[in-house]
């Protein structure tokens, strides 16, 4: 018995012993590899392709950071995390950043000691049901069985939604999104609930997408974005401004195609500061002048990343909606580069 106490103490200590709380940027550069936490597989957002290479909207953020910091968008160790393991992985230092459709909430930011560096997708929780169930609104779901991923904000929103509408339900908890889909397809639950972007992605990958409807209700605000640990502001700045660089590039019309031409210097001072032909922004971050150029070169600006991974031309087919840039009436907005 004594032995088991020691082993468990070692485990508990190990949980935090690996945490390094300063100099993440130096660590990453010394290691030559970025450890990036992603989901275990959501089509369009983060999923390995046929060759085993991770692709997707969230993965693109990891690649941009790796390109900015290490000058190699493939120098990444992708760590698949579940809704349950993601925060421990980040807090313990196993990963340097988490880009895994994670909702920015007060308690995660404040109580769990994380730093959300921005929002790359404004989402909301929705429901998907089989069309032959004949349900047209989430308020008709009294008594339904609902498949839900545990350890997510959706779980709490679900409880709130049914309580405030005075309805009962039966939760079927599962660990990963694909498990939820398996259960939903087998009929173990009537409804599957998660963020609407993920619902659209899952639906697009089903055999007959037309047999499933995403109900119109949006029951919560889910701002999704990458996050890092508290306590290393410099590293937080690197990730934050890499994301902002992608957004600013879209605002300024810098694309993968015209990037080289634009970086030679233009008459737009903000573009010059962004791409490093003017000013010392890169130096202030602890990087070189061309960091943002490299980040954009990987998979284009924010709009291009959106279109190529989850946009209307892909089979996921998400419209920009509130995720359009602010000048088009959306919410995607970057602070200025100056």
């Amino acid at each position: 018995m004594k032995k088991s106490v020691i082993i468990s103490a070692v485990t508990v200590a190990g949980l935090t012993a690996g945490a390094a709380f300063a100099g993440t940027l130096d660590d990453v550069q010394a290691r030559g590899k970025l450890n990036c936490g992603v989901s275990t597989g959501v089509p369009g957002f983060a999923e390995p392709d046929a060759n085993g290479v991770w692709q997707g909207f969230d993965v693109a953020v990891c690649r941009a950071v790796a390109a900015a910091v290490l000058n190699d968008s493939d120098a990444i160790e992708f760590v698949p995390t579940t809704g349950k393991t993601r925060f421990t992985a980040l807090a313990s230092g196993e990963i340097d950043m988490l880009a895994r459709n994670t909702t920015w909430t007060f308690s995660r930011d404040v109580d769990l000691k994380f730093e959300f560096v921005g929002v790359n997708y404004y989402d909301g929780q929705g429901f998907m049901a089989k069309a032959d169930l004949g349900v047209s609104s989430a308020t008709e779901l009294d008594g339904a069985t609902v498949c839900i991923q545990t350890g997510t904000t959706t779980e709490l929103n679900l409880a709130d939604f049914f309580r405030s509408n005075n309805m009962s339900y039966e939760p079927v908890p599962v660990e990963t999104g694909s498990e939820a889909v398996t259960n939903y397809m087998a009929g173990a639950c009537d409804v599957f609930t998660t963020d609407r972007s993920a619902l659209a992605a899952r639906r697009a990958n089903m055999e007959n997408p037309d047999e499933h409807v995403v109900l119109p209700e949006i029951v919560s605000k889910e701002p999704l974005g990458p996050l890092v640990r508290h306590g290393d502001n410099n590293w937080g700045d690197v990730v934050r401004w890499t994301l902002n660089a992608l957004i600013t590039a879209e605002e300024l019309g810098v694309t993968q195609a015209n990037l080289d031409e634009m970086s030679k210097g233009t008459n737009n001072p903000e573009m010059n500061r962004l791409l490093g032909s003017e000013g010392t922004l890169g130096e202030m971050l602890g990087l070189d002048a061309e960091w943002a150029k490299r980040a954009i070169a990987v998979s284009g600006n924010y709009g291009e990343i959106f279109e190529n991974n989850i946009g209307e031309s892909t089979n996921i087919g998400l419209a920009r909606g509130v995720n359009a840039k602010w000048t088009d009436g959306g919410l995607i907005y970057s602070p200025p580069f100056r």
Partner: protein
Amino acid sequence: MNTSELARRDKFQFSMLLNDKRYRSYTFQFFALFILICAMAYLGKNLLENLAAAGLNISYSFLGEPSGYDINQRLIEYNSQSTHLRASIVGVLNTLLVAFLGCIAATFFGVTAGILRLSNNWIVAKLMMIYVEIFRNVPVLIWILIIHSVFLAFLPQPKAFRGENPEATMLWDAFAFTGRGFYIPKPIFNDGSLIVIITFILSIIGVFAFRYYARQKLYSEGKLLETRWTSVAIFFIPTILIYFALGNPITLEYPELKGFNFKGGIHARGSLISLWFALSIYTGAFIAEVVRAGIQSVDKGQSEAAGALGMRPNFIMNLVILPQALRVIVPPLISFYLNITKNSSLALAVGYMDITGTLGGITLNQTGRAIEAVLLLMLFYLVISLSISAIMNVYNRSIMLKER
């Protein structure tokens, strides 16, 4: 050697801590303990320092806060406004439920398979061997997943019961076997049902009293009373008479298809059933081997002697062999019971909300209190395992070979 010399030798001297055999072991043990304490203190300090560096602290105050999530199977009153502590208790009860059911079913499967493996019938013996080898050699998590998917795939969903010509129908309009679980009628206790229950309990006591009386009669006067049918009569007749005399105080609530699901009755969820079945059939395979070993450990002469006395085979098994085999079977059986309890923590694989799913899963996640929750979980499993050991050890002592 005179007495003063002896006294001087026995007098404790400091060097004796290393040179004297009597004290040396104490010295070593003391140092071992000291190093152990230092190592643990170092790990503890390291943990606290790292937590402090991350701006975190160890606090159990989250247990008093509202949990915010719902749990499907709850044996006590619980909703999303209840505290995390209550959610943990719901999980504890679910763990205990599946562990208890699992131990009983595993013992049943194990004893049956173990005895049948020694059958003279070649087919039965080989079938049992195949059962044992297949189940013992595949990890339990895989069995849980296989059984759950079979459950989901082969049983009809509530939807299939709907419509004019449904694909599936209820058994006797009372039992519904669906992929979401089994729905069975639930007894409703009205006025007067207490009397029926008391009568029932009294008749169970009556059966035991009668059997005791019959045995005493056999030992003292050598008279063999008919026990089987009398027991059955004592068991059923008074309860049935009282039940009808009071005008059916206990009624049944039948499950009915309403909206999305069946409503009413008792709902044994698919997750509970597949977890229960998987755990018990898996552990049953191990128990079968222990039972077989136990039976084979009893000398062949014992059954031959019993046979020579004219005892029938099932009497030989029940009265001669099993009582002696139990001495060998029970100690390993304890660790199988512990295994069932601990393996039940794989419950989340099928969405069964045990303590690992509530406290170690959702609560841990929503509050981010990983270390606190894991420590509590360890404490819980430790307490449960030690309690099971204690109870089984009492039983073990009662069946040990009594030397007179």
